């Protein structure tokens, strides 16, 4: 019985929390003229289904694949450079490592909107603007790398050193112990953080907007902004766009989340 009371409570929390999400779905289905009526309507009485039309008209397939490319590229780079660093920072305690950690935190202070202009200036000089999606992947990875390092570091912290030491006694190299003991044990943290990084990068806006000038290479968020513009009335269309953008990720994530969290609660560290 208590379990169902908890479930009810959880559903209430979720309902409050997800209200903005609900409003997005609702607006996607309402006719535009209903968007601003007061008192507001909470159910689409005459739903409009424009999904296919918006998807095709707004070239969402192109935009979404660009976003996907950038998100995957960023996540791969971040995992490659960040995992080892996070591991090292969790294993060694010295002034030098303190300085490294400090510098890493410093590197992600400014909002992208303030970083974009200097980056444009330098990338224009060295010619990276010619391959704009790569340019976005490189800077976006730099932007989220500190986040990844700090978070995965905490996962490595929770792994007892003794396990690695035992492996070393059995003849494994540092690298071997890192790959076969530390990384698998920290996989939950690595996975969760990578997913967060992926989501952040999928929604990247500022760098894409300022570094990518060719429309066919633009990302979904920039496509949305171009659609919105300053004087929009087509809220129905915009929210339809947003729904197409959000729903698959949400779906995949809810499924994936179960895997991650069930792995977590099973406890990798018994």
């Amino acid at each position, binding site marked *: 019985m208590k379990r169902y009371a908890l479930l009810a409570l959880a559903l209430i929390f979720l309902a409050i929390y997800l209200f903005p999400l609900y409003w997005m779905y609702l607006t996607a289905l309402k006719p535009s003229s209903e968007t601003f009526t007061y008192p507001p309507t909470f159910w689409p009485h005459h739903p409009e289904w424009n999904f296919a039309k918006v998807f095709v008209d707004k070239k969402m397939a192109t935009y979404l694949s660009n976003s996907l490319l950038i998100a995957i590229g960023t996540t791969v780079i971040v995992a490659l450079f960040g995992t080892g660093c996070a591991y090292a920072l969790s294993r060694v305690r010295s002034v030098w490592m303190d300085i490294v950690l400090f510098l890493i935190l410093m590197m992600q202070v400014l909002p992208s909107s303030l970083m974009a202009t200097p980056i444009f200036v330098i990338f224009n000089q060295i010619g990276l603007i010619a391959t704009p999606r790569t340019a976005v992947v490189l800077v976006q990875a730099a932007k989220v790398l500190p986040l990844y390092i700090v978070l995965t570091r905490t996962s490595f912290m929770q792994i007892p050193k003794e396990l690695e030491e035992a492996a070393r006694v059995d003849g494994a190299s540092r690298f071997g112990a890192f790959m076969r003991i530390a990384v698998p044990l920290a996989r939950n943290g690595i996975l969760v953080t990578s997913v967060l990084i992926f989501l952040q990068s999928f929604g990247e806006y500022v760098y894409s907007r300022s570094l990518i000038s060719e429309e066919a290479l633009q990302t979904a968020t920039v496509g949305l902004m171009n659609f919105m513009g*300053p004087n929009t009335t087509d809220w129905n269309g915009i929210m339809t766009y947003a729904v197409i953008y959000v729903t698959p990720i949400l779906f995949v994530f809810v499924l994936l989340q179960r895997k991650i969290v069930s792995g977590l609660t099973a406890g990798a560290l018994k």
Partner: protein
Amino acid sequence: MRNMKRLLAGALALAGSTVLASAEEVTLNVWTIDREEDPGYMYVMAKEFQKLHPEVKFNIKHVEFADWANDITRAVATGTAPDVAYVDNPNTPFLSSKGALLDISPYIKDSKVVDPSKIFPGPLSTVTWDGKIYGLPRGSNTIALYYNKDMFKAAGLDPDKPPQTWDELYETAKKLTDPSKNVYGLAFSANANEEGTFQFLPWIQSAGGNFDKVNGPGAVKALELWQKIIDEKLASPDTLIRGQYDSFATFNAQNAAMAISGPWELPRMSKDAKFDVGIALLPVPELGAKRASALGEGNNVIFAKTKHPKEAYEYLEYMYSQMPRVWNEFGFVPSYPVEVKDPKWPAEYAVFVESMKYAAARGPSPDWAKISKAISTAIQQALTHQADAQTALNTAQTTIEGIVSK
């Protein structure tokens, strides 16, 4: 064989015949805030121009209005500026004063199409810097008072007698306000950026001030009136954070009985507004006082570093020559007197064309952005009662004097 021909044509061109030189293919990079799907002005013009000049190709890039200044200055700084671009009129002096734009006066001197003396003084002043001309207006806009005739009748007001003075505006707004029906008397924009300044400047100008003289008694009176309108909730408090387009939406939805805005509202209004709309010139301080109105829209310019000044100028000239079409097709008010056959929304057109006579430029000043910020800051301070109108405008005046005298 074909190569041979092209070579020959090139040789001939070099030999001095400028007519044949047009065989050379040229690509113009163009930036605009229009959207391709609307169909935007720049896209339509480019297509038409290309029919007349098949050798000129276009590469048009859409830039969001909000990002425009950011992107264009960065492009100029890094040498990646386009050949031709749209520039919002108050921003034009900022670029021309820094030498970023091509002086087109020499071309205009030989032109059969462009006669600068015909251009309305407002738009002309925005393309002129130091006696030279740096662009051609593509069209203009200005603001006027829209009102809901049905609501006038319901409130016992004469729907053919819109308010003409500030006092009448206040009285009328008061009569039309009805909180029980969610109706405000007036909708306008006093937000913290350019739009707030754009809407307020004409009030200062018709009270004898201007952008460099904002703290005269007339300007103070105007700001106090705005204050009163907000304090008494004759307009929504959200006026402080809403742009003109969002404010006007409340007029269309009959949540406001009058609204101050421009011709860009007409397409949406004719679709959304289910009532009889009237339109009038902006009210003045008292009957017989000087009229003023805001000047919006912008200019087509050529960047100084272009490699194809001749083609770029021809394109500019073509666009300029299409002025008689801009009202019906793009919703701009013509920037020089033209005859518009069969104007859409004839009543509104008549008011906006008359309004154009009084429309004064914002500035012109290369530091317009800073001046504008000073004015919108004063508006916001007064409307939130952080300072009284006189003090707020005095502060703005000091700031502006510091900028102008520099």
